[in-house]
């Protein structure tokens, strides 16, 4: 990131303007306007709560609806930042062919747009917390760092994906499928504590249990969602053991993804 920051700083006005345009355009002719941004997580929360009443998921002392809502917030932010980021280059063909500015502006803009929707989600979360009488603790201050980390993860996917999508539109087709699979591999419907209990405490997979738990945590969203819930709802510090494998993966893949993007960028206008 350090390579792009000084350069991109000059383009902050552009990113702001484009993100603002995305939001205005999306909700301008909609009667419910920005409310649509929170309808998706709220609906999913209700569905999961309904399902949970049939199958029974151990959630500890946190009520399930708010637990799953706190999981859906970072998840949906990540999922939509990544998928809109991947489509952002091909969606802006007209601009790409006519004018130059660093192309990473597009995936970044897609993310900034989603950041606004995430902010609205916090109002719902606050309302839920008030309803369940949960008070945030000092550990809630971790949340901005967690969101920033989620942005890095989303960028890792969207930089590489959007560049590859210019050459092969298969990427944009495959991504929604992969992302919905990834949701089940992330602690969205069930809490991470459940996975931990099965693998670490019960050693459900025998000698592979500990290794499997680490592999599960290579998915950065596992740590992010769990920490998000811990910091906001349980009032405790993030679990760095579950954050570490995903963080290492991100640190390794983000530069590769960025370099690929910068290399491919030169031919966007020719290929797109």
């Amino acid at each position, binding site marked *: 990131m350090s390579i792009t920051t000084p350069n991109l700083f000059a383009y902050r*006005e*552009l990113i702001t303007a484009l993100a603002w*345009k995305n939001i205005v355009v999306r909700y301008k002719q909609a009667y419910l306007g920005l409310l649509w941004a929170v309808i998706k997580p709220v609906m999913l929360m209700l569905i999961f709560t309904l399902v949970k009443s049939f199958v029974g998921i151990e959630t500890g002392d946190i009520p399930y609806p708010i637990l799953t809502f706190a999981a859906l917030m970072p998840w949906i932010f990540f999922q939509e930042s990544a998928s809109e980021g991947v489509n952002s280059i091909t969606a802006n063909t*007209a601009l790409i062919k006519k004018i130059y500015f660093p192309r990473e502006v597009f995936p970044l803009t897609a993310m900034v747009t989603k950041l606004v929707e995430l902010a609205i989600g916090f109002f719902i979360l606050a309302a839920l917390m008030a309803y369940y009488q949960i008070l945030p603790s000092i550990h809630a201050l971790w949340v901005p760092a967690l969101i920033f980390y989620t942005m890095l993860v989303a960028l890792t996917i969207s930089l590489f994906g959007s560049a590859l999508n210019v050459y092969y539109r298969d990427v944009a087709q495959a991504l929604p499928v992969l992302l919905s699979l990834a949701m089940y591999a992330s602690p969205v419907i069930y809490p991470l504590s459940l996975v931990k209990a099965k693998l670490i405490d019960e050693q459900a997979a025998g000698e592979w249990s500990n290794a499997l738990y680490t592999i599960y945590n290579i998915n950065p969203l596992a740590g992010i969602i769990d920490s998000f819930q811990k910091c906001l709802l349980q009032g405790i510090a993030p679990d760095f053991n579950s954050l570490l494998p995903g963080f290492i993966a991100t640190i390794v893949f983000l530069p590769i993804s960025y370099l690929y993007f910068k290399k491919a960028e030169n*031919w966007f206008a*020719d290929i797109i």
Partner: protein
Amino acid sequence: MPPIIEVKHLTKEYSLGTLTSAKDTLRHSMAKLRGKETWHREKFKALDDVNFTIERGEVVGIIGHNGAGKSTLLKHIANITKPTRGEITVNGSIAPLIEVGAGVSPDLTGRENIFLNGAILGIPKKTIQRKLDEIIDFSELEQFIDTPVKRYSSGMAIKLGFSIATSLDADILIVDEVLAVGDLAFQRKCFDRMETLINKEGKTVLLVSHNIRQVSRMCSRVILLKQGKIIIDSDPDEACTAFYNENNKQIKSKLISAEQEHNNKVELIDIQIMSPEGLNIEQININDPLNIRIKIRVFSEIIKPEVVIGTHTTDFIYLTANSTDTHETIDNFSPGEYEILFTHQNYPLKPGAYGVRMNVFDQNRNTLFHGENLIFFAVDIDKSESKKPPLRLIDVEGEFRIQKLTK
């Protein structure tokens, strides 16, 4: 001071043919790994070893046929795409006057689009705020500025785009065929705005246009491209004349190849501009005789035919027209080939390029043949010309009477 734009050995190749699918790419990289021959896609050189430098304040026109590489060249200078070989150095900020539509979002209002487009073109928000009134004023859209652009007519959207783009404060302006926008009054305004930018603010301008008269009027230098190569890089007159000659060759070869497509009563076989000595020429001097020789083939009998031969400017303003009917009717045409010799004793128009048109009518004035741009010829400057006032098409005697009104 270093030149503002420096282009060295610029070459751009594109692969021809269909897009590769992931499957093909995979198959061919596998084949390569095993050391086998993969298929080679044909390359097309859009630009071929192009070299030039542009100094600050120069106004350079780039002309050439469709596909000559004009827009590709501009894209490289604007950093939108990268060269296959060679390098480009640009010492200054660039404002591409993008074709309208690229940056305009239909759902936003005119005002919102001004800010969005400004951001896209890299104009700071403060500058836009300062210039907002000026931009709205220039676009003539005060009444509609808070209406979404999708409800605009296409002309209105174009006006808005041009107004935003020219409010930019960059060192180099890149203009690709955008001056032909809006109604005539607005075109005039755009033209004036461009001339202000060029003459008063001393901007460096790169202009691509098919309107050669516009190019030769605005530019101090013209580059003629053909198949990705620079043919001529010189003053506007020389380059534009060369361009017309190029055009002639192309049109001639088309005429001959298209011969069989005619099944009308009359077809054109050949057309030439002749010198008084009967040689084939492409340019004449002012007030020289203009001799046109045309060969036509007549397929069936035409009773009381009428032939009209005229000249026009390259933008189709009809200048002369002479008909065989003016004095007397000519003999009926019977099937076979005819040669028509036509002469203007002196062709009085000023330097520039002009086209020839011809019509053939039957006795009821039904059109049997109609063609414009059949051949171009250039009128060249004679030596006395440099002393005369510039920018005029014809010499007409005029008389001045100047008297002082106030005492």
